[in-house]
C-alpha cells in the first residue's frame, strides 16, 4: 500500500459556544485505506468530516486533504465523494434516482462530460451499489436503504479518489443495513478508493475497515480493528462494554447499568 496520506489531521481542536467539541485530535488516512471513525453521538465525528470538507473553518491545528487546506482550495473537491448523514430533502422533490446520481458528476472543476458519458457514469454508479432497479423512481418513493444506496451512487458517480460517509446506516432498517454493508464491502474491493466512514455503531464498521479511530472529543484509539479493546471502547463511549468477536465483526455490548 502506498503510504501517501490523503487526509492528514494534526492537533485538531474545535469548540462551539466555549465547549470543547474536538481536543488535540490527530490521525491520517493513507491512499487506499478504509478508516472507520467511530464514537458515541456528540463525540465530534461529524464535526471532523465537516472540517475535512471545508464547511467548518474556525478550528486550530493542521488539516489537509490531498495536501491542501480544505477551505482554501476547491481543486480537491472533484476528487471527493460525500454521503451525508440522514438527509432531509424537500418533501416530494421532483427528481428521479438518475437525476440525483447525475448531480455527483457536476462538482466544480469536474471534467466536462458529454450527455452519453454522463448517462454511462450514472448507470455504472447505480449498478455498483445494486440500485439499477430504482433508476427511474422518484427519490421520495424510495425506502431509507434504497435512498442511501442512491446517495452512495451519487458520491461514486464523480469517480472520487476519497469517499466520506457519515452514518450511512442511520434510518435504514436491519435488512437494508446488511445489504448496504455488503455493497460497501463489494464496491470497496472493486474500486480500491480511500474511504472514511463515520458511525456510532462499532459492529457496522469493524468487518470492513482497515483501521478504526475511536473518537469522543479526544481520540482514544487509532489502529487495526483486531487491536480494539474493551477498555478503548469504554473510554470512548463512557460506559462499561465487552467486545464480541464473531466473523470478524466487533459489536460492543453494554454489560452493566450506566448513564451516558
Amino acid at each position, binding site marked *: 500500500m502506498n503510504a501517501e496520506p490523503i487526509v492528514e489531521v494534526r492537533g485538531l481542536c474545535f469548540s462551539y459556544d466555549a465547549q470543547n467539541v474536538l481536543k488535540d485530535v490527530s490521525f491520517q488516512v493513507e491512499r487506499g485505506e478504509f478508516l472507520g471513525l467511530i464514537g458515541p453521538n456528540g463525540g465530534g465525528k461529524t464535526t471532523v468530516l465537516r472540517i475535512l470538507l471545508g464547511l467548518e473553518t474556525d478550528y486550530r491545528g493542521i488539516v489537509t486533504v490531498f495536501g491542501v487546506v480544505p477551505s482554501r482550495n*476547491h481543486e480537491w473537491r472533484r476528487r471527493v465523494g460525500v454521503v451525508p448523514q440522514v438527509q432531509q430533502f424537500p418533501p416530494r422533490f421532483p427528481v428521479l434516482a438518475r437525476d440525483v446520481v447525475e*448531480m455527483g458528476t457536476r462538482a*466544480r472543476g469536474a471534467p466536462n462530460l458529454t450527455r452519453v458519458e454522463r448517462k454511462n457514469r450514472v448507470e455504472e454508479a447505480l449498478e455498483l451499489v445494486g440500485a439499477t432497479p430504482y433508476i427511474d423512481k422518484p427519490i421520495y418513493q424510495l425506502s431509507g436503504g434504497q435512498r442511501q444506496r442512491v446517495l452512495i451512487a451519487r458520491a461514486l458517480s464523480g469517480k472520487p479518489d476519497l469517499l466520506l460517509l457519515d452514518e450511512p446506516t442511520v434510518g435504514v432498517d436491519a435488512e437494508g443495513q446488511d445489504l448496504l454493508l455488503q455493497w460497501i464491502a463489494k464496491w470497496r474491493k472493486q474500486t480500491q478508493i480511500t474511504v472514511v466512514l463515520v458511525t456510532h455503531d462499532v459492529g457496522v464498521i469493524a468487518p470492513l475497515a482497515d483501521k478504526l479511530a475511536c473518537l469522543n472529543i479526544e481520540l482514544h484509539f487509532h489502529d487495526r480493528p483486531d487491536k480494539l479493546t474493551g477498555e478503548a471502547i469504554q473510554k470512548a463511549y463512557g460506559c462499561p462494554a465487552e467486545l464480541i468477536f464473531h466473523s470478524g465483526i466487533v459489536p460492543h455490548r453494554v454489560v452493566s447499568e450506566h448513564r451516558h
Partner: protein
Amino acid sequence: MHFIELLSYGFVLRAILAAALLGVACGVLSFFVVQRSLAFMGHGVAHSLVAGVGIAVLFDWPVFWPVLITAILVSTAVGWITERKQVSEDSAIGITLSAALAFGIVLVSLKKGYVADLETYLFGSLLAVLPQDLVMLGVLTLLISVTAIWKWKLLLMFAFDSEGTAISGYPVRVIRYGLLSLLAIMIAVAMKIVGILLVGAFLVIPAAAAGFWSARAGRVVWLSVLFALISAIGGMLLSISLDTPAGAAIVLMLVTFFGLSRIFGRLN
C-alpha cells in the same frame, strides 16, 4: 363598457401583457419557492412592502424604488438572521414583516387621505401598470428565464441539497442571496398588479399544482409556467369582464388549477 371595447384600450392590453410576463417569471420562481420552503418568506416580504409604500406616500416619491429597496432589505435581513441560527427562519420572517408592516402603517397614517391609495397596493390594480413597469417586468422575466435555463442543473442541485452543492465547491451563499434578491424584486414589481396581499400566492401555487403532475423537475417548472401564464391572462380577462380586482381573479384561477391538479394529477 363592453368587454371587447375594453380590450382595445392601451392600458388594458398593457395590463394583460404584464400579467403574462408575471406568469412566466412567477412560474419559474415558484418552483424554487416551493422546494426551498420560501412560501412564508414570499408572504413576509410582500407584507413588509407596506413600509416602502409608507415611505413613498409620506415623502411624495414614486412608489417603485422605496418598495424595491424595502423588499431587498427585508429578504436579505431574513436570510442573514437565519444564517446565524439564533432565530428560526419563520420567527425571523414573522418579526421582520410585523416591524415593516407596523412602520408602514404609521407612515401612511401620518399622511392623511391616502387610504384609497394603500388599498390599490394591497389588492393590485389594472390601471396602475405603466409602460415603464412593463419594461421592468420584461427585463426581469428575461433575466429569470435565461438564468433558469442557463444554470438549471446548478439551481436544481442547490434546491435539492444546498449543503451538498456547497461541498461540490459552488458558492451557495451567492446562489441563496441571488435567489432571495430575485424573489424580492419580483414581489416588488408584481405588487402593483396582484397586490401585496396576494402576490405570495402567485409564488407558491403554480409549482405546488404542477408538482401533482410530474416527478421531473424540468417538467414541473414548464407546467408551473403554463399554469401561472393561463391564470394570469385568464384572471386578468375575468377581472376586466366582472370589474373585480385583478389579483383576486388571478389567485382564484390559480387555486382552481391547484384543486384540479390535486384531484386529477398523475402523482396523487
